């Protein structure tokens, strides 16, 4: 297994390099004005363009520009965000807690419910509960998340008025969390509210989280449920399960102790991919619910043609994805002895 991990670790910088090359290739497709935004915060006047272009070496050969750009990037300078009105790096740090909070709250339902429902479905194969759960999962995989989000908004926020339509906190608390008396540790309101001992703020934050989390989690949950069910059904047909039953073990023991751990192997890979894919879904969810996270800012920047922000975020997300994949691979190697001993 160590050779496997070492091999992956060695390849990772290569992939990162490839990612930077791809991003730079996209960057070089832009006009001079847009590329200048990497160095100059304000839009330059047309007359200054040539001078600035020379000054920042935008007419140099591509490899030279790439090297220079890579150097700046390595130091953490991702350029200036037109839409965010601050350097991209700072923007990412500022918006990260909101997205992380949303992701963390979604991960638990996805993993817990997805696997539990999938196992339940497989164990009760073709009975009523299986059919019900299959309908739940197939609607989940068919519905686009923005439609789901809008429908939830319509029903729960609009018609029934039980839940808010967006944002992270109700207006009365928004100033509170920026005030100096408020102890800010993680900038995630569900955590900080508990640290500050304010249950009312905590409840408000949770209320605002419900619809976005359901929207974000439902589809991934449905996918995980289908995969778990499929894998579990496969496993339950294996010979060693028949042996366990023949030995007279209680059905529950057979399922929980023998079948389920093996069934979960492919689920680890898919589950990892899904969690990493939360980045995608978050963009849509955050846009619909006006959630001030990375996804929403990304989409806003894209629509306003603020390419620097878009590329900076892409760089960041690419890095996250590569690291995430590595972790999932290592996890899979730990869990599946066949990979380890290979």
């Amino acid at each position, binding site marked *: 297994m160590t050779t496997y991990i070492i091999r992956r670790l060695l390849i990772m910088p290569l992939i990162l390099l490839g*990612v930077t090359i*791809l991003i730079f290739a*996209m960057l070089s497709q832009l006009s001079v004005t847009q590329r200048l935004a990497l160095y100059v915060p304000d839009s330059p006047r047309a007359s200054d363009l040539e001078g600035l272009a020379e000054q920042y070496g935008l007419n140099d050969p591509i490899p030279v520009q790439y090297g220079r750009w890579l150097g700046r990037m390595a130091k953490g300078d991702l350029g200036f965000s037109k839409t965010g009105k601050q350097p991209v790096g700072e923007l990412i740090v500022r918006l990260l807690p909101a997205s992380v909070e949303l992701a963390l709250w979604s991960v638990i339902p996805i993993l817990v419910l997805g696997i539990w429902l999938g196992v339940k479905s497989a164990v009760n194969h073709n009975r009523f509960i299986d059919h019900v759960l299959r309908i739940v999962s197939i609607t989940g995989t068919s519905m*686009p998340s923005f439609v789901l989000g809008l429908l939830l908004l319509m029903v729960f926020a609009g018609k029934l008025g039980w839940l808010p339509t967006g944002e992270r906190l109700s207006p009365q608390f928004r100033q509170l969390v920026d005030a100096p008396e408020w102890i800010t540790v993680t900038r995630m309101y569900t955590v900080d509210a508990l640290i500050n001992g304010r249950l009312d703020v905590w409840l408000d934050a949770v209320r605002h989280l419900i619809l976005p989390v359901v929207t974000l989690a439902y589809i991934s949950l449905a*996918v995980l449920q289908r*995969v778990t069910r499929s894998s579990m059904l496969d496993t339950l047909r294996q010979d060693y399960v028949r042996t366990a039953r023949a030995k007279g073990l209680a059905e529950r023991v057979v399922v929980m102790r023998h079948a389920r751990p093996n069934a979960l192997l492919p689920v680890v890979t898919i589950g990892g991919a899904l969690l990493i894919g939360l980045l995608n879904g978050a963009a849509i969810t955050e846009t619909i619910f006006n959630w001030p996270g990375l996804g929403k800012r990304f989409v806003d920047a894209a629509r306003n043609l603020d390419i620097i922000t878009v590329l900076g975020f892409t760089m960041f997300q690419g890095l996250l994805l590569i690291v995430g994949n590595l972790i999932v691979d290592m996890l899979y190697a730990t869990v599946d002895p066949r990979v380890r001993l290979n």
Partner: protein
Amino acid sequence: MTQDSEAIGAVAHSIHPISPDVPFVDEPIANVVDRRSVRYVVRQLFSNSSSIIGTVLLTAFAVIALAAPLLAPCPDDPRQQRRCGPDPYNVPRYGFSQVPIPPNDVYRFGTTPTQYDIYYGVVWGARTAFKVGVVIVGLSLLIGLTIGALAGYYGGWIDEGLMRVVEVFQAFPFLLAAITLATILRTNPNFTGTMPAILALVAFGWTGYARLVRADILSVKQREYVWAARSLGAGDRQIIMRHVLPNSIFPVLVVASLDIGTVVLSFAALSFFGLGVPDGYADWGQMISSARTRIPSLVEDWYIVLFPGGAIALFSLGWNLIGDTIRDILDPRLAGGE
């Protein structure tokens, strides 16, 4: 293919190429069934309720798409003729007020806040969906198959190098990368209409097919009939064209055609953000995107979400249901499970 669907495809579909040249020896001879015959496929399609529903849904959409000029003809109003006369994909627009009109006798599904006819958009949107789906999957397949086949057949350094390229492309979250590329392409006047979105989705979608085809080829390469052909003196190219490719490609083609449903979802997401099609184009995602500005009053404006959204959901549902059945046909091992 999105990363999710690729992962699922890899798990749920096993590499099971069947050559017509070699008898299917794993089954008792008496029960030999040609799983690739059209008759068997059709029979399976009608064997359970979910695939019947899927077939009905997709046929309905195909009919709607084909009959679009009959179901939603360009209205006689000369102002509208200027929009949908030359290009029927331009949705008629009845004015410039910002208030949507609920369904009534004239506008069967109502209008969007910017006065686009939703009924027209949904009907012609079916055509757009098929068009866009087929084009994107087709192009992705072309690229993916080429690269995957090269990597799989030649192995060695070519394989390693190409797979690293695949990994680089897969290092980007699919939708976000597509958004990035679509945005960049849109600044370039050479790419108009649906091209930025299509190219963006293709650019990050081909990787799934490359990996699938490579895995299939690696498996097929070891089969006896390839050794046999080689020992008879067949050259590399002959082996690829006549033995390896046909058997490896078939499962990938099937997975690809099922991906049309997922691709339409991704394209709708791009359109929802305003990055897919030009304004006023007949596309389901485009119709829903105007709901973004009406979130406080969504209950009164329900038709903006329900009709196009329902279309997307049902379209996708149809593909998913049929997909399950086709996957069962491809892999007999899973047939007893689903």
